[in-house]
């Protein structure tokens, strides 16, 4: 088993919580992993990225080589495209569809959609909306994670365990909210993929 995942978004959107949940699940599975994060300067509203590598053999490089990622999980549509050079030919892109507008020259959404549509495998979903319905917009990142669960290579139940242990400190309500968000993301992606 070997899955290379790029997580992307805008500083402050919560890609590191996604990484933490998958990391926790991978650890429970006894997998090897490396996860390279970017801290510092780039966090102030700039683009952020983290590479997550899971394998049943030791992982050498902290960085994912170009053309090797099985999956891009992005919290923002334009940011999902920024890392395409890392994606495998047959890789998946799972992204939030709501643009994060903090720059003056944000491109036309239709063009972004068209680019996503050109890829063999992509899902874009309105994570904010789905998270709000699940209980709080703050779980939007976990909605996206839910939508990506079929491509991670770790059983869904293990990802749920990851959520339990990462959010336990914040109380049972937060755990339940995130479990609902995870499921809602998975369901929504299923509907979209079928229609695709």
């Amino acid at each position, binding site marked *: 088993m070997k899955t290379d995942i790029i997580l992307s978004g805008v500083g402050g959107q919560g890609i590191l919580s996604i990484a933490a949940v998958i990391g926790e699940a991978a650890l429970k599975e006894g997998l090897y*992993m490396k996860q390279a994060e970017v*801290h510092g300067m780039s966090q102030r509203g700039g683009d952020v990225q983290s590479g997550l590598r899971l394998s049943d053999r030791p992982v050498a490089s902290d960085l994912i080589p170009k053309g090797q990622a099985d999956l891009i999980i992005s919290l923002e549509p334009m940011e999902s495209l920024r890392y395409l050079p890392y994606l495998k030919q047959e890789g998946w892109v799972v992204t939030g569809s709501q643009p994060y507008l903090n720059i003056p020259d944000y491109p036309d959404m239709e063009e972004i959609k068209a680019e996503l549509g050109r890829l063999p495998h992509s899902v874009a979903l309105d994570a904010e909306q789905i998270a709000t319905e699940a209980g709080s917009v703050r779980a939007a990142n976990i909605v996206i994670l839910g939508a990506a669960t079929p491509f991670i290579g770790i059983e869904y139940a293990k990802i749920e365990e990851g959520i339990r242990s990462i959010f336990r400190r914040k109380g049972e309500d937060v755990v339940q909210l995130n479990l609902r968000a995870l499921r809602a993301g998975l369901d929504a992606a299923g509907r979209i993929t079928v229609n695709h």
Partner: protein
Amino acid sequence: MGKHLFLGDEAIAQAAIDAGLSGVYAYPGTPSTEITEYIQDSDMAKSRGIRSKWCVNEKTALEAALGMSYAGKRALCCMKHVGLNVAADCFMNAAMSGVNGGLIIVTADDPSMHSSQNEQDNRVLGNFAMIPMLEPSNQQEAYDMVYGGFEMSERLGYPVLLRITTRMAHSRAGVETRPVKPQRPVSFPADGKQRFILLPVNARRRFRALLKAQETFALESETSPYNTYFDAPNREVGIITCGIGFNYIAENYPDGPEHPTLKICQYPLPRKQIEQLAATCREILVLEEGYPVVEELLRGIAGGDRSLTVHGRLDGTLPRDGELTPDIVGKTLGKDVGACYDVPGVVAQRPPCLCAGCGHRDLYSALNEVAGEYEGARVFSDIGCYTLGALPPFQAIDSCIDMGASITMAKGAADAGVFPAVSVIGDSTFTHSGMTGLLDCVNEQTPVTIIISDNETTAMTGGQDSAGTGRLEAICLGIGVEPEHLHVMTPLKKNYEEMKRIIRREIEYRGVSVLIPRRECIQSLKRKHTAKK
């Protein structure tokens, strides 16, 4: 004990705690910050009474760490690469005095400058000080090196420099921890006065001792478990890797290196193994993260081995700048690597920016208007979130060089006749290295307008305590700023007119003025708010 998912920084921190640390001394700086934060948050560190508060700057940090080592205890000092420039005086001279309790100095270098002004390779400074250096290739090694590093430092009698780079510091991996060791009691060095009083008579003796110790350090490197020679069938080219460079070889040869490979993680260089590699292969490829330190040594200038061809950053085999990546290394090894997709043209740049609601924004809005009234206005700035004032929409500053330089550069420019010469500096940067420059200005009554944009935290690096919070006015007055030219204001839109009036008036004052726009960092506010919930 057990297996944990640790950032490289966290592995270092936990290792230090497990190794009987008594104090960590540090000033924040990406990518080193999480080492100290981990120790500050650790219950185990608390129960062991490990000292861990932030220091005013890297120099005070290293000096205090050396003091703790002098008193026989184990000390850790952490900084980003440019921090070692600030601490360099103590660093060079601690190599002369040597240590008593184990002392590990961590330098977190930032090749590719993800969050830094330069990409200096502090192995050069390690060589300059002539002390042993460790450079882990993975998180487990980072743990093990620190766990054993204090004893190494005590055994050799010298500080040890641990060099990491961004990808080591900020990448997470599983790490096996080891049994906890006891902390050390206070004990003084038997020959303390001969070692720690660096009068010329002692210093000469100490320098000879340091020169002599080089043999021991080299022997340590040659027998170090961290320097490993892998033999392999394809002897056309031999490979030397430093630190995490090895991982990119392992990535490209998952079943083991195909070329004889020397993995170097401890310095000074292990001569014996390098000679062995050179005797085996007539071409050597050097993969090092940072400057071509090893490559340059191998090449020599005159008298080098002419029949040996060395490839690396100097002959264009690898780019001269920037961090190594698996792609760059793969391409060099002739592997079929590359992207299947390009970045689509629609993707726009998304540079970092000042947060909505940040006080620095309001300062720059007001300052820009006033500065615009003067043709020759120059705004010397400094390092912190407020450096983002360089970008649109503000484009408010003219310089950012090194911590504290805003005040002294404004002074030099004012001396040259620039008017108005304005300095914009953050509160933490001011106490780090701005106070001394302010004294220079006061002593000469230089016409400068110094703005300390006070968000009551060290925001850029994640909101650490700022050393002067609550005392900036007292500090400035103590240095000799005239009370009538020291103003505190609240940077808010509704106060623009008043802010502008004060800025204008103080620019017109031909002496030293200090303005302190003060409003809590919006991110700290948010954090406090969530913590309460």
